[in-house]
Each structure stands twice: as C-alpha cells, then as structure tokens.
C-alpha cells in the first residue's frame, strides 16, 4: 500500500514537474513565436519601406542574379521603362533592353566579379536600347538570399547633361579649331600688377597655332609664363597699351614696329574680363613695305611732275618771249600799207601765226602751272586736327558771298558733324565743290545748293547737292581726271579742281563720290575721318 502510495506520489510528482516543464516550455515557445512574428512584421515593414523608397527614386534600380541574369528585384522606374514586362523569372536583358536574345554585349558582370563586393561600385555610361536615353550606371555585387551572388544596378538618367556636355565639347572644339586655324596671331593674357596696382608685366594664358609659328615658340614654352620670359626682354612689349585695355575695358588697335623681330604688326586688343586681355595680331610687314614703296613711288611721281613742269616751262618762256620779240619787230616795221606787195601780204599772216603761237604757249603754261600746283599740293605738309565743320563752311560761304549773290544762288547748310582734317585743304575741297555748283548751274532755274552732313562709324559724310546742269553717268569717272573739262568753251578753269579735290581727300584719308544725271543736278558725297567729338543736333541754317 505504502509502496503504491509512494509510487502514486512519485508519479504525480513527476507528472507535475513535467507538466510544469511543459507549461514552461510551451509558454516560452509561445513568447518566442510571438516575438518572431513581431520581428517578421517589422522586417516586412522595413522591406516595404525600402521598396517604397526604391520605387520613388527617379533612377533605374534592379537586382539580378549574377549567373542567370534573372531579375530578383526591379523598382517602378524599371517596370515603367520595360513597359510592364517584369515578371518572376524574367532576365534583365529581356525586360530592360530591346530585342535582346542573350546577355548584353556590354554586360559588365565579368568586371564586377573581378572587383568583388568589397570594392567601390563600378561606374560606367550606357545608352538604354528601350528609350535611347543615356544613363550613368553604378553596379555592385551583393549577397542576395537564396542566390550565390546578385548584382544591384542603379542607373541615373544623364541624357540632358550628356547633351549639354557634348554641345560644350563641340563648341569648345569649334572655337579651338577656329582659334588655331586663324592666320592672325592670337594670345590671351593676364595682367600682373604690383602691390600698388601698377601694371608691371603680363602672363600668357593661351596662344594659337599661328602665334607659335610666327614667334617660333612651342606652346608649352609660352602658356603660363611671363611676357618678359617668353620674349626675353626686360620690359614687356606694349605694356602701356595692353594694361589700358585690361583695366579700362575699352578695346584698342594700333600698328607698331617690333624691333626684336624686325616686323610690323597691326595689333587689336580686347578685354573680356578685368585684368585679362586678348591680342589679335596681324603681320603687316609686307603691307608696310608695299605702302612705303607706294609712298616712294608717289613721291617720285610728284618729283617728276614738278621737274617736268618746271623744265617744260623754261622753253615756253622762250617760245612766248621771242614770239613777243617778233611782234615788237613787226611793229617797228611801220604800217603794212607802206610795204611792197609780198611783204605786205605776208605780214598779217605772220602776225596771225604769232598770235596762235602765243595763245598756245599761254595754254600750255596754264596746264604746267596746274601740274605744278598739283605736285605742290601732294608735297604740302598737313596739319590734321578736329574741324568744326559748321564754322568752316560758314566762313567759306561768307568768303564766297559775292559769287553766291552774283549767281543769285540759295545756299542751305544743315548742321554738320565735325571731322578730322587739315582746315586749309578741307576748305579747298568745299570751295571747289561750291564753285562748281555755282559755275555749272542750270540757266533756266534758280540755283539751289544744299550742304548737309551725317555721321557713320568712323566717318563724317558731307553732301554738296545742286540743281544744276548735272553730269551724265559716262562722265562720272572722267571729271576726276587731270585737265578734263566738260565744257571747255563755256566756263573758265584749269580742269584741275576735282583732280585736286580727290588728291587732297586721299591724303586726308577721305573719299569723294558723285551721284548725278544729265540735267538733274549733281550730288557730291565727301567722306572724311570722324572727329572724336559727338555730332550736334540737326538744325537748318540758311544763308
């Protein structure tokens, strides 16, 4: 009995212990289970958050198996560009590229395996065959549950940047090839100033091919170096001119002889940024040489005219002088009636011949005087300065007042812009034009003369317009020729006026043109270098 009781107690005890143990275990497992499911929920949440984040990205994100290329994950962006092709088991090259029958030829997987997953992401640029857009791709090998190795791909659309970069590159190439193809010597510089801000030197920032060729320098020996080093000089060439542009910003051009190279240059300086400037230089040595030759030829020609006209006048003095002596001699012979027949008949003929000889000598003398005048004009010193044309023309009209009144001419002068020239020569030009306008007035209508002016860049343009007889177009070139006279019988003059006018204007850096038709009046257009002063307002003045 006792034994039975004891057993019973023992069994009951063990059972209780077991029950308690089981209870404990069950409770524990239930807690574990609860904890695990909570963790799973959290994990799910976190995964969802991650996917939401990846889906909201404006970038292509996918994960694929390294071996099979099976897509393990693709974000919404990927789904969108694939056109809804993404489904379990599809490969990246099937869903995300166009008409592919196998892995992409440009697949970077071998490179990724080589790099392993410890290394930084592999970056490269590719064009997607579905939408033709350019992407900057970042790929990296990552572990993926259930797969030995997977690849994560993040592609950022860089089509616009790439286009901008391409455009920039193209433009850069364009300018660079232009820069180097230019015949002109082009260089960019930076001004160097001392502590007080005074320019002391300048540094070469860039130079073109022509620069290297002309100066016989290699680009590497020029760029980044000081002008004094590059040219081997104590004083940087043209520092004053260059610093004026670099600091003031106003472009300037000048011509200069560069002694170290024995060459003449025409240099344009522009500044695109404070303290920086570009020089565009042309070698004008040949041009200068030709100009000098031309000048020498012109001087020679003027000398010839001078000598010829002088030496030609000398025999003319004799022709006229002795013809005159003969006239005196005839006079001493007394009246014709007192002479016997042959002499009496010959004497009037002799007198007539002498008259013709002397008239021709006078005519020739006038022509030679004209030539002398012309040659003298070409040699006369010029005093060039800004001219107040309103004042100059005003004075001219005052001094020609008698002639104007006599012709009953009405001269209208509008406000005239200033110009640069020699006042004596410029006055001569307009005196000549005014004189012509009066001389060649139309007989049947009152003479109207209008002098007006306007400014264009670098020049002042004056117009002398009349309502006179006009000049037929076929004579427009002839009238500027030496000794050419349209109406030699009707008017007097040497036929030199317009020749001299054109010569004078040529020396002053100006031009003259004519617009006219026969019977329609004439318009002479005179162009002279502009003065620096600003032109005034348009006002009418009548004299």
């Amino acid at each position: 009995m006792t034994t039975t009781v004891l057993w019973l107690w023992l069994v009951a005890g063990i059972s209780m212990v077991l029950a308690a143990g089981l209870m404990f275990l069950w409770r524990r497992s239930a807690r574990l289970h609860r904890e695990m499911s909570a963790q799973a929920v959290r994990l799910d949440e976190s995964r969802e958050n991650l996917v939401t984040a990846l889906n909201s990205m404006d970038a292509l994100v996918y994960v694929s198996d390294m071996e099979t290329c099976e897509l393990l994950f693709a974000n919404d962006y990927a789904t969108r560009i694939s056109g809804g092709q993404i489904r379990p088991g599809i490969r990246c090259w099937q869903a995300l590229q166009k008409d592919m029958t196998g892995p992409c030829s440009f697949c970077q997987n071998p490179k990724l395996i080589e790099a392993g997953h410890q290394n930084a992401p592999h970056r490269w640029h590719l064009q997607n065959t579905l939408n033709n857009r350019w992407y900057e791709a970042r790929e990296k090998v990552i572990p993926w549950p259930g797969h030995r190795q997977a690849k994560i791909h993040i592609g950022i659309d860089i089509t616009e940047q790439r286009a901008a970069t391409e455009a920039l590159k193209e433009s850069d190439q364009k300018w660079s090839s232009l820069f180097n193809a230019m015949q002109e010597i082009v260089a960019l510089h930076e001004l160097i100033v001392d502590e007080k801000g005074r320019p002391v030197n300048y540094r070469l920032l860039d130079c073109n091919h022509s620069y290297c060729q002309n100066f016989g320098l290699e680009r590497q020996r020029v760029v980044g170096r000081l002008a004094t080093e590059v040219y081997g000089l104590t004083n940087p060439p043209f520092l004053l001119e260059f610093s004026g542009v670099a600091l003031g910003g106003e472009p300037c051009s000048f011509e200069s002889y560069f002694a170290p190279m024995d060459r003449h240059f025409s240099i344009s300086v522009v500044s695109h940024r404070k303290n920086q400037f570009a020089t565009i230089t042309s070698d004008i040595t040949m041009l200068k040489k030709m100009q000098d030759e031309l000048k020498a030829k012109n001087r020679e020609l003027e000398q010839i005219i001078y000598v010829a006209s002088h030496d030609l006048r000398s025999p003319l003095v004799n022709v006229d002088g002795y013809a005159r002596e003969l006239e005196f001699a005839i006079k001493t012979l007394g009246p014709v009636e007192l002479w016997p027949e042959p002499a009496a008949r010959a004497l009037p003929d002799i007198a007539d011949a002498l008259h013709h000889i002397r008239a021709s000598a006078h005519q020739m003398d006038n022509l030679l005087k004209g030539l002398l005048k012309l040659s003298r004009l070409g040699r006369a010193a010029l005093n060039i300065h800004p001219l107040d044309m309103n004042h100059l023309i005003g004075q001219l009209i005052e001094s020609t007042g008698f002639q104007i009144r006599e012709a009953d001419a009405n001269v209208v002068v509008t406000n005239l812009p200033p110009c640069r020239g020699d006042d004596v020569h410029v006055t001569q030009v307009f005196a000549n034009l005014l004189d012509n306008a009066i001389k060649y007035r139309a007989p049947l209508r009152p003479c109207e003369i209008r002098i007006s002016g306007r400014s264009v860049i670098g020049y002042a343009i004056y117009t002398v317009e009349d309502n006179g007889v006009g000049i037929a177009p076929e004579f427009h070139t002839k009238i500027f020729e030496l000794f050419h006279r349209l109406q030699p019988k009707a008017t007097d003059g040497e036929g030199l006026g317009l020749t001299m006018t054109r010569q004078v204007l040529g020396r002053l850096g100006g031009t003259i043109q004519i617009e006219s038709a026969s019977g329609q009046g004439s318009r002479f257009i005179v162009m002279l270098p502009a003065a620096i002063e600003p032109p005034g307002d348009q006002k009418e003045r009548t004299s």
Partner: protein
Amino acid sequence: MSEKKEVIILIAEDDDGHAGLIRRNLERAGVANEVRRFSDGQEILDFLFLRGEGPVRQSGVAYTLLLDIRMPRVDGVEVLRQVKNDPELKKMPVIMITTTDDPQEVALCHEMGCNSYITKPVEYEAFVHAIRQLGLYLAVVQIPEISRTQP
C-alpha cells in the same frame, strides 16, 4: 661830291634764250647798264670769288646779280647761300629770276637773304613790268660798292 657809279648787272642764267630775253627787256625798259652774263652757278661763283681762269670782279664796282635757280653744276640757291655768307659780297643785291613760283622756294630764298624774287612768266607783260621795276630800282638805289679784300 660822290659820283654815282654805273651798276654792272650780272646775269647767271643757263638758258641763252632767257638771258637774251632778259637783256632785251632790260634795254626796252630803259636800263642801259652794262650787263655780264654767266652760263651757270660755277661761272658766277668763280667771277665773284675771284677764282678760275676767266674774268673776275673788280674792286670798287657796284654789282647787282640776277640769279636763275635751276642751273647745271651749282644751282642758284647754292650761289645765293655762298654770296650771303660772304661779309663783303652780301651787300650786293641779288634778284632771283626763276620759272617756278613755288612758295616754299620763294620763302627759302627770302630766308637766305635774296632781295627780290621774280618769276619768269610766260605772260610777258608781267615780266616786263617786273624788269622795269628792277630798272627803276637800279636807278634809284645806291648799290654798295664791293671791296676786293676778303677777310
């Protein structure tokens, strides 16, 4: 009582015709003075500076020089320069007679001390007038005698 001595007119002119015309017109203008003609600048310089083989000027005689500018060997401007640089000869009136009326040349000659400047014009009346004036000038003006001594 000082007796007015006859002035001798020297003509330096390379052109025979011109020299003849000047002579004739002087006569016609009533200038009866003795006239001596020289064919170029060198001849007149030799005469004035007592050099060479030919005739030379006399002491105590009053001379007036009509000088052409363009002459072979030595030109008129050079003759004028040498004459006006000589302390004795510079007293002698010099009248430039030339074919040009180049203002620069006229100014140069005046600067160098020429007394008058006549252009040889083809307009004969003007020339005759100029010569006549010269004749009057010669008649009125006391031409200084030139001493032979040279410093």
